Every structure is written in C-alpha cells, then in structure tokens.
C-alpha cells in the first residue's frame, strides 16, 4: 500500500529508523505470532514508543512501510488510543483517573498534587527537568479504590494528595 512512499525519498533529511538491529528482530519475532502484518500494528507501535518515548509522524510512516499499511491508517490508529504519545513525554508518565466516581473522591486534587510536586505545571506538559508528564484519564477500572494512578506501567490504588510527595520521590 505504501509503495509510492519512498518515491521522492530525500537524500538530505536525516531520519534514524527505529527498526534496525535488536528492535527489528523483536518485530520479526512478533510478526511470527500474527496471521498477517496488519495485525502486528499495535505491538509495532509499542516498540516505537519504547525505543523513542513517543511516536512521531516519521515513525508512523516507517511502521506503515514495514507493515504494508498506509501512513494515514497508522495515524488513525495512533490517534485513537490515548496510550500512544504523539508528543514527547517525560521519563515518568503519570495517569490519574478523574472520571466521576474518582472525581467525587477528590481525584482532581490528586492530579493537582502531582503537577505541583513534579513541577510539570500543566496537564499534558512535561516538567522542565524532562522527568514528568501528568495527564488525566478516564476510568481505570478501580472505582472502589479511588483514586487509582498509573505511573509508567505500575498501578497504584487509593492515592490521596498527601501520598503524592512520597510517590514522586520514589520514581524520581
């Protein structure tokens, strides 16, 4: 589908491909588990995010070419899931549930506490030291243990504003 893409590949712009060496090998291994290449799109995007921290337009084009998809299709998928980052994020990525049940229990205060202690200032922005990005997300499925927070891949329940400084210290 993307055969036309390299048509005017420019010799001057530098782009560092993600899928080389070990990353490429991992993708190939993943491909063996799926019936076709399109099905491996989500894990391929994870590999990009793991290697680069976020997924740029050029990365999407690279994935499209590798999997025989169109760049627009890949973009459609990346922009559908909130867990793929389309902009650079901090080293630690904090997701605070602020859907109604948690909200009633003070989730917004938790989010504000994270902003304050990490120095990230605004939701979605990255702290000046590059270590933290905080965002609000919809229900994390732990409504009985408000407020749940995800820091990177760790799931932490029953967070209150006063527990935030401790958490921040731990992950710094």
């Amino acid at each position, binding site marked *: 589908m993307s055969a036309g*893409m390299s048509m005017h*590949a420019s010799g001057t712009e530098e782009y560092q491909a993600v899928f080389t060496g070990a990353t490429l090998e991992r993708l190939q291994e993943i491909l063996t588990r799926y019936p076709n290449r399109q099905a491996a799109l989500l894990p391929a995007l994870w590999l990009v995010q793991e290697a680069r921290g976020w997924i740029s*337009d050029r990365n999407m084009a690279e994935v499209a070419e590798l999997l025989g998809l169109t*760049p627009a299709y890949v973009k*459609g998928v990346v922009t559908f899931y909130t867990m793929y980052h389309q902009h650079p994020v901090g080293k630690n990525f904090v997701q605070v549930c602020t859907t109604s049940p948690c909200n009633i229990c003070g989730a917004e205060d938790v989010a504000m506490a994270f902003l304050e202690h990490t120095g990230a200032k605004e939701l979605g922005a990255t702290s000046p030291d590059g270590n933290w990005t905080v965002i609000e997300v919809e229900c994390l499925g732990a409504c009985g243990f408000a407020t749940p927070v995800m820091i990177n891949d760790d799931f932490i329940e029953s967070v209150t504003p006063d527990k935030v400084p401790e958490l921040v210290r731990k992950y710094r």
Partner: protein
Amino acid sequence: MPSLTIDGRALTAGTDQTILEAARAAGLGIPTLCWYPKLPIVGNCRICLVSVAGEPKLLPACATKVTDGMQVTTESHAAVQNRRGVLSLLLERYPADHLRNGGRAEPRNEFERYVMQYGVVPTPTWGRDLPLRTGDERPGDPMIRHDMTTCILCTRCVRACEDIQVVGVLDVGFRGEHAEIVVGADGDPEKAGCTWCGECVRVCPTGAIFEVMPKERFSPQQIRHPERVVRSVCPYCGVGCQVDLHVANNTVARVTSPDIEADTPNQGSTCVKGRFGYDFPQHRDRLTTPLIRRGWEKEGGCWAWKGRRGAERRGGPWKSIEGEGQQTKPGTPPRVTGKKVRQLPLLERIDMDIRDRVATPSSWYEPFREATWDEALELVAQELLRIKQQRGGDALACFSSAKCSNEENYLMMRMFRGALGTNNVDHCTRLCHSTSVAAMQRAINTAAASGSMREIEEACDVIFIAGANTTESHPVFGALIKRAHEKGATLIVADPRRTELAGRADIHLQMQPGTDVALYSAMLHHILTQGLENKEFITTRTHGFEGVREAVRAYDPDRAAKITGVPADTIRRAAELYATGPNTSTLWAMGLTQHAMGTDIVTSLLNLMFACGMIGRWGAAMLPIRGQNNVQGASDVGAIPFVYTDYQPVTDPEVRERFAKTWGVSPESLSLNKGLMVTEVVKPESGIRGMYIMGENPIISDPDIAHAEHWFLQLEFLAVQDLFLTETARYADVVLPGASFAEKTGTFVNTERRIQLAKKAVDSPGQVRGDLEILIDLSNRLGLNAPFKTADDVMREIVRVTPSWAGVTHARLEGAGLQYPVPTPDHPGTRFLFADAFPTADGKATFVPVQYTDPVELPDDAYPFVMNTGRQLYHWHTGTMTRRATGLDAREPTPIVEIHPADAARLGVAEGDLVRLTSRRNSMVTAVRVSDRVARGQVFVPFHFREAAANLLTNPILDPYAKMAELKICAVRIEPVRMPAAV
C-alpha cells in the same frame, strides 16, 4: 428472485441486492451520504434509513439486503424524522449560515441539497456548542485543497482513494469527538503517495475537498452553472478517458469525469493530467495567427525567399537544445505541499520561476511575421508543389500526429498520398509501439491489442507486465491493475526499475536493461521442461514451434540468471505462474519496444504467450499499452508509410486502385513504394527536402537531438502546424496555428481499439483554425478534391475504405464508443479477438525464433551508468502541453535525473545538486533526485524538458525491422557540476 414493494411499487430484485440498489434500479431515489456507487458500504451516516413493514426499527437501505415480500416505505414519517435529525446533527458542525436565509439560499452541494429538501433549518453559528471541524488541508497545493470545516465525515474520500485508486492517502484520525480526515501521517500528501488524481474531489458531497483552479478563475455561479458541459476524450494517454468539459466564458472552466457507473473506458476515473491538465490552451504562448518566416516575399504572384542563405537561413536568436543542455540551471524548487502554511516556501517566487521557465521566449518570435491564412496556405501549397515538381514527391515527408483525430490523420495521409504522390507519412508510433506492431504483424498479422482493459479486473488470474510503468504513464489503467491485484490476481512485473507496480508485485523480475529476450526465453525453457506449455493450442493454432523450442534450449534459467541478474528460482516461479494461469494477460509498453532489438524482444514475449495459449479468451489478453491518445487511430487510418487505412499495403495495386477511385485521382499518381519512417526521415541520406509537421515536436522526441536539430536546418521548406511555437516550429518557414482538443470534434482510438467521439466545447482563440479545416483547405489548394465540411463527413469516407470500421458513424459513437472490428452498422463492436482464429492466411499464429544479443551500448569504465528514459506522472512527452498546464507544471517544474542513493553518495551529490551527464553522443546538465526506484548503476531521465533534453544523449541506432531507436539504453557518465554561488 425476491419480490418486494417499495413505496407501494411492486418490484423484483436480484438476490444479493440491497434495498437501495433495488430502489435505484426502479428509478426511485433514497437519500445517501456515505454510500457511493462502487465504494465499500460503511453505513455510518444513517440518512438512508427506511421503514420496513414488521421491523421494529428503521433499516439502512444501503446496507440491508432485500428479502422476499419486503414492504419498504422510503419517506415514512419515522424515516423523514430520522433524516431531519441526522441532517441537523451534521449541521451542528457545518458553516450553514447562508442556508438560514428564509430558504432562499441556493444549495451549494449534495449535502446542502438534502438540507433544503428536508427543510432543516441550521442552528446559527452563535448558538452552537461544538466548534467547526478541522483536518489536514493541503495548503498551497496547486490543484487540490481541503476546507475541512465543511467535512461531514462520510469517509467517501477515504474509500475512493483506498479502493478505487488503491493509494490510501487519507484516513480518519482522532476518532471520537475530534475525528477528522488526515492526510498521510504528517499532512503531506506527497509523502503519502498521493497522485493528485482528484478521485477524492469527485466523491466529496460537500466540497470539503475541492479543486483550486476553477475557484481561482471563475465565480461560484459560473462553476455551478456552466454554459454547457461537453463530452470529450482526455488529450493525453492511450487509456482514452472520457471527460466532461465545463464551459464558462468560452474557456474550459473545469473538467469532471463521467458517472462512475457509466460505461466508459475509465469507469469514471481520471488521472491528474485528465482532470487538472486542461488549461494549456489558454496559455499566453498560444499562437493565434499564422506566422511566416521573414525573408519570404511575394513577387509577381509568387512567393520567393529573399532572406539569408546557408546555415543562417533557419536561424534565430535562441540557443540550440544542445546549448541549453550545457547551461547550469536552477534546481528543483521545494515542492509546495505540506501541513502548515508557514512551513511552505514563498509561493510568489515559485510562481515567477514557473512562468519564466515555461514560456516561449519572446525572442523566438523575432524571425517571424504575422500573416493571413491565405498567405500562409498559399506559400505552403506553392513550396510543396515546387519541391514535388523539381525533385519528385519522395523528396517530401510529413509527420502526422497521434494527438490529432482519426479524421485529421486520414486527411493528412490522403493529402500526402493523393496530392503529393508519396508514402512518406509517419507519426510518433515509430518511437512508440512500432516494434510491437512489427512483431505482432510477423506473428499474427495484426497491430492492436487483442482484449480490453476491463477484463484484467474482471477475469484475469495472472497479470504479467513487462516494461510498463503503468501507474505513472497510464494511471487510470494502473489503478485498475492495482484493484485487480487487491482482488486476488497474481501480479508479475518485469522491469529494471522498481516502479510502484513492481513494489506491489508478487514477483518483480528486476533484470538488467535490455536482457528481456534472455528472460522470456528462460521462462519458456522452464515451462517446456515442466511440460506446462499448452500443447493443444500449439498444435491447433500455431506453426513453427519447433524452431522456438530449439532457440530457447540455450536459455536455462541458470544461464539466464547470469545475463539478466534475476535469480534462477525467481524466473522459474514466474514461469510456472504465467503458464498455469488459468487466465494470464500479457501487458507491455515502452520498456520492451524502445530498443534497437525491440522487435525481437516483443517477439520473444509473444512466443511465451502463444506457447502457453494465453490469448483469445476473456481474461487472457494481449495488451500492448499504447502511449498517445490516438496513436492507435493514427496508425489505423493509415498515417504510416507502408499502409493505407486498416493496414492495407501501399504496395498492392488493387488497394491502390480502390483508394485512387475514392479520392478521385488516377491510380498512377499514388506511389507503390513504401515510404520513409520518422527515424529514417531525419537522416542526411533520406533525401527529404520539404516537410510538413502536424502537432509533433521531433526536436525533443528524436534520439540524438543535436544531429536531428542540425538536420532540420538543411531543409528547403518546413511547415509546422501546432498550438505553440515549439522547439521544432521555431525552425519553420510557415507556422499554422491549430486548434486544441477542446476546440474541435473528432474521433480517437484508445489502447483497447475503442473508437470514441470527442466534441467541440469552446471556440478557438484569434484566427486559429481547426486542423481539419486547415487540411481540407490545403488539400484543395494542392489540387486534391476534399469535399468535406465536418469531421462527420470525413468519417463517412473513412468507413468506406476501412472494412473493420464499416459500421461506424459518429452517431453510434455517442456514449461508450465502439471497439473495432465493427464490420456492419448493427455490429456491437468487439471486446476481445482471436477466440477461434488469427487474421492470417490459414488462421494460425507463427512462432519466430529469436536470440538474445547484448544491448548495443553497455556500461564501461568511461561511461559506467546505464541511462533509461521515460515519462513522469505530471508531464507528457515533449512538454508542449503539460509544461503550460499550471497545476501539472507546478508539480514537476524542472528536469531531473533519478539516481540510486548509494550511487549518489559515491558521487558525492545530494538531492537538488546539479550533475553533468555525458554519453558517447553529447552531454547535458540536470538536477539530482535521489530515489531507490532505480537500481544501482542505473539512472532514469524523463524526456520532457527542453533545457535538459534526455534525447541529447540517446543512441540513434535503429531496430532492423521497425526502425525504432535505442531510446531505453545508453551508457553515460555522471560528474557533479560546481555551481556559482547564487542562482
């Protein structure tokens, strides 16, 4: 067959039909937005919901299959309520203030028509909760832009691009509240592979995706209500797309393609050239009066040359093509596409660039004076007759034109044969499919495709394409091939370049240029060792197979692998697929034919095809893809040196008798000798002293231009009939301004033998005359009675002398046209040929054994690269038209050479750098485009550009049978050119 009622009308429908299809078949309308004919059904807009008796809920008509006894009400109260609901929801994010005007506003598009029809009043902008939509907008694009505030997310554009054009530039991103149409990953259509075909423009129901040029030049009123809409045929390639010309102010304001469901060769699509390349006739360079070279003066009723003599006679204040080739020149400006306006380069600067580069320099007009038609034609007639008297008719030659209609080509050859007594009539087929014609004539005495384009999609299992970059050179056919491939046909591509189709192919045979004979022979070799040949076909329908069996014995795949560079196993696999079909179609184009052994190359492919019996069935087609929009027709009506119409030989006295009688001349005045071909004419030994050229530009298209250009200087007389003062016309004695495609009526034959009618849409500017009119007038002045007024009159004479067109009339060509043979007035035309027999004496095909020889010029230390020439998507041949078409030229404004990244690195050159290419003939300077489409060691140079003409370098050595030149291969060396600091 289910029967049902729709709005009380009893109908029977096909088993697999949807309610919508059944309704449409019965002439009943149901509103639709996301549905579009031929696109996959998504059923997401919900405007088509209808009531079905017994169903608790409304059902989508576009996605619900009919069942027996169904009772459908399309405009039930519930359905109408729903529709109004859908429309008002869509209007929540649609700028519709103009529709609030008490219902007086005029709807601007399909969507707004529904809004009016259902009387929905849009919420005023200030009362809305949601902002208007956004999306990628293609800012600065010369042809297509988006205004995504009016997008209703029907996704027609996404599906049209993906499923009809098979490109996939567009998709829906940010699904959810902020859903929008995205262009590729980064908003840049270029990187996403967009071909600017405009299919997305055509399907969009709201004009969110729109064409730029009409909007810039005409008022909305003029665009919405054209003075007339006229069916014509695209003036570019051999696919022969039908197009509708919209006229405002006596100019073509816009081109649209016919209904997607109409029976046209293009099935409603066009490529970028057809849809956006229509404005060249309005270019300010257009010639509007006849021109006569200063120095011709009338004395005592006779024209005499009083000007300079010798080499200066045809000179002028311009650089030769050779000279321009040597100059340094501005590199390619950055392409004006991308996501954000502020990332774009300065537009004005590029505009200026384009105008200055493309225009005919004003100094070119200096050697000429304006003249009246009477003066010009009198002078042409006098000189042609003088040369005929003094030196004989064979000292004259004409180049007719594959861009002109059948009627015009017929009149041209009629005039040269009937009035001037010479068969020196030819056109650019010589540099195109002449080798195919030679090979096909040798084998089965025919000169055209056996099948239709459509069968590739409908019935073909294996598509074998050799030397054809179809997606760029015949884009609409290319898209059809891609669709066939997506639907499951196997695609095998033999090409030295990694073209788009090669990139998609199941097998890409990337051979060394010119090694085709070895490749196809090896495939046949393998087929024979496996016993996969079609023995029955070989015994009952061919002769001479033993000779070919002998000839291919030497080419086992391992040996061929060494010659061609294609791994032996790949050859074997391709051979097996080809032979086992069951229906394999064989397509080829210039990559095979433009060689000095082109006839042999095509022959070896035909041998493979006959041995497997892959011809004469629907799905097993032989398709040489013709280049020009009328190269087939120009040959069919006899604008070639050895035949009259229908390939009746000029050497046959009986044929001559017939034509003499029709034309009202004595048989003796018609020559029985074959005439000279294009490539033979332009040689010192040809003896040609006077020429008439209609719509061709040999000074750019002939091999080894420097010699060709020099040759023209020695002529005693040269007349050129064209739209512009071309590189060739500037050397003429008389230049006659002809009419463009939109300004005349005539018929054209496409690559599948389909004769189509193009009708006049606008009047010509100034004193321009139709080519037909010019030729009629001139014929009469030359003493050959030409009793015609219209193209229709001429067609009536053509069909009298062309048996396979006998049933053709202009009236019958309305609509889809007719695929000849059409032997009788009620014959429906012929979709495919040779089901039972070939048109040879005994009905059988002849195998002709051929041997591989190395290409004449191989790379060596002094000239280490192989140069290949060809066409680009946005340009046409010598650029006379496309370089004056605003949108097209903005895409490819400057000459380039494609170089493989590894070679570029080794030479130390980057994108945009200037390099000098030198062959054994000549050299020229052009800019680098780094591209992995070419293999290492090879370079590709498009031949459209006067300032870096590829044909300065090409080799004029000729094919022994068809006199085709070696246009595809020559050895070159490449050196970086140091640029002066500022350009």
